[in-house]
């Protein structure tokens, strides 16, 4: 653990992504150390989500390098070290919380070791119980995901990421669909996971949450980093500058 805290768990250099002629990311750099929460702020279309999707292997990138836990990943490669948490949560609503968490382990299981949600081996189910307990939902293990509140569902999704045994948690607007209390709880959970030694990179739309829960704030404008500061240094003027493209795009009331 000590070696991880000195060298970054995740190191991105010069990440570039184009969709046709449109440059979405250009020379994006990011370091996230174990034990650190880094918030990424930026207007719609600034490249935040694309950046996370490139890291998680869901989208291929065109240039730059991504090093995770000392190993460089190829574009489009799925690295088990990365776990994603999504704005729309993306649990399977018909399955129980426990079955959803178990699914995080699929990457290290063969098809026949877990051919159906009810067929996970005992050790995976017990590990998943541990993950559910970590997010404070052990007693809801057998409830269907759709019966849980939005905040509880997002915590189950975090437990799924834990069951994946990932070292880096990538959160794409994890609290945008949640009420303030649930959002607060999810952010505290991410904070405490970092305190346990995880590296957390979270795209956020709430500067307030970024100020209170992160160690560093990174601002993206037009696919480039325009800000990389401690949260205490984040001013309202910084925020207005970052979201200026959104104000322009919304039009109408000025």
């Amino acid at each position, binding site marked *: 653990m000590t070696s991880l805290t000195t060298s970054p768990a995740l190191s991105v250099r010069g990440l570039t992504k184009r969709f046709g002629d449109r440059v979405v990311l250009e020379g994006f750099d990011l370091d996230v150390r174990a034990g650190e929460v880094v918030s990424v702020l930026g207007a719609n279309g600034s490249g935040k989500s694309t950046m996370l999707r490139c890291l*998680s*292997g*869901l989208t291929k990138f065109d240039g730059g390098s991504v090093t995770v836990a000392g190993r460089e990943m190829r574009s489009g490669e*799925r690295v*088990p070290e*990365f*776990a*994603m948490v*999504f704005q*729309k*949560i*993306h*649990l*399977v*609503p*018909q*399955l129980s919380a426990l*079955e959803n968490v178990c*699914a*995080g382990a*699929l*990457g*290290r*299981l063969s*098809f026949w070791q*877990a*051919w*159906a*949600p009810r067929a996970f081996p005992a050790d995976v189910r017990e590990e998943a119980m541990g993950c559910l307990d970590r997010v404070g939902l052990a007693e809801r293990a057998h409830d269907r995901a759709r019966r849980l509140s939005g905040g509880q569902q997002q915590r189950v*999704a975090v437990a*799924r*990421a834990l069951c*994946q045994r990932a070292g880096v948690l990538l959160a794409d607007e994890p609290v945008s669909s949640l009420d303030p209390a649930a959002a607060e709880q999810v952010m505290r959970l991410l904070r405490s996971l970092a305190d346990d030694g995880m590296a957390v990179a979270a795209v956020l739309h709430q500067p307030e949450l970024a100020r209170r829960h992160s160690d560093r704030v990174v601002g993206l404008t037009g696919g480039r980093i325009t800000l990389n500061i401690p949260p205490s240094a984040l001013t309202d003027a910084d925020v207005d500058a970052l979201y200026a493209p959104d104000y322009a795009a919304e039009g109408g009331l000025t």
Partner: protein
Amino acid sequence: MSATLNTTPARRLPVPPRRRTVGWLVTTAAVLAVVVGLHVVAVRETEFSLPELVTGWHGIWSFLFGDPKTAGALPPDLSWKIVGPALGACAVTFSMGLLGTTLSIPFALFLALLGSRTTSKNVVVYQLARALMSFLRSVPSLVWGLIYVTAVGLGPFPGVLAIITHNTGVMGKLWSEAMEETDRGPLEALRSAGASPAQTAAHAVLPSVTPQFTSLFLYRVDVNVRDALTLGVIGAGGIGFYITQAIQEFQFNVMMTYVLMVTVMVIALDLLSAWLRGRIMQ
């Protein structure tokens, strides 16, 4: 003290006119002309003629109320010696529909997984599976029945085989579309967690669509029991066969009993299936 609420209505503004171009008018007129034209052709081709129906009314009258030689359909013969055996025949028809649907599940599931864009990435496999499903469902179960009769002879068994074959095509298509309409989010989440395509199908896609699958299955049982009825008419046994026999023997009052029993069975099944589907989709 009470503050005065501002209830003045907002200023009125003229509603800007919707832009309708000449192109829109031409397209609408053309579509209307084609639709009307098709119906004119259809009326001619089917020799559709209301006057003929009116002048032939006495045929229907003697069918319903009888003539000096035969008993009419009304009143139906509700004696137990007719109703008793017919109950058994209804059970045969129901069994054909149920068994045909249930036994088509593995084939339909297999083709649906290969023929759905959500679970099938290989374009060739996808197109082949869809083509096979189209073929199976475009051949009516009556034709499949006649083919199977040459192999196993008359009776309910070729009827079940016919329903399995036809229903594999229909249910496979319905199921594959249910999978294509499902939220792709959970699939993506598992993919990012390193799950293989087979694993995402088993752990994200299939669990998400289980309610739709069950609902479509119940709907198909309902349809296939009615299909089994028509298969019975061509010799696959059950209540459909009883109806044919009664007509051939000019026992219209007996036929009417069978028709009433079928109606009750179909409505009961329809209600049950709709109720179950409602519970599942909650």
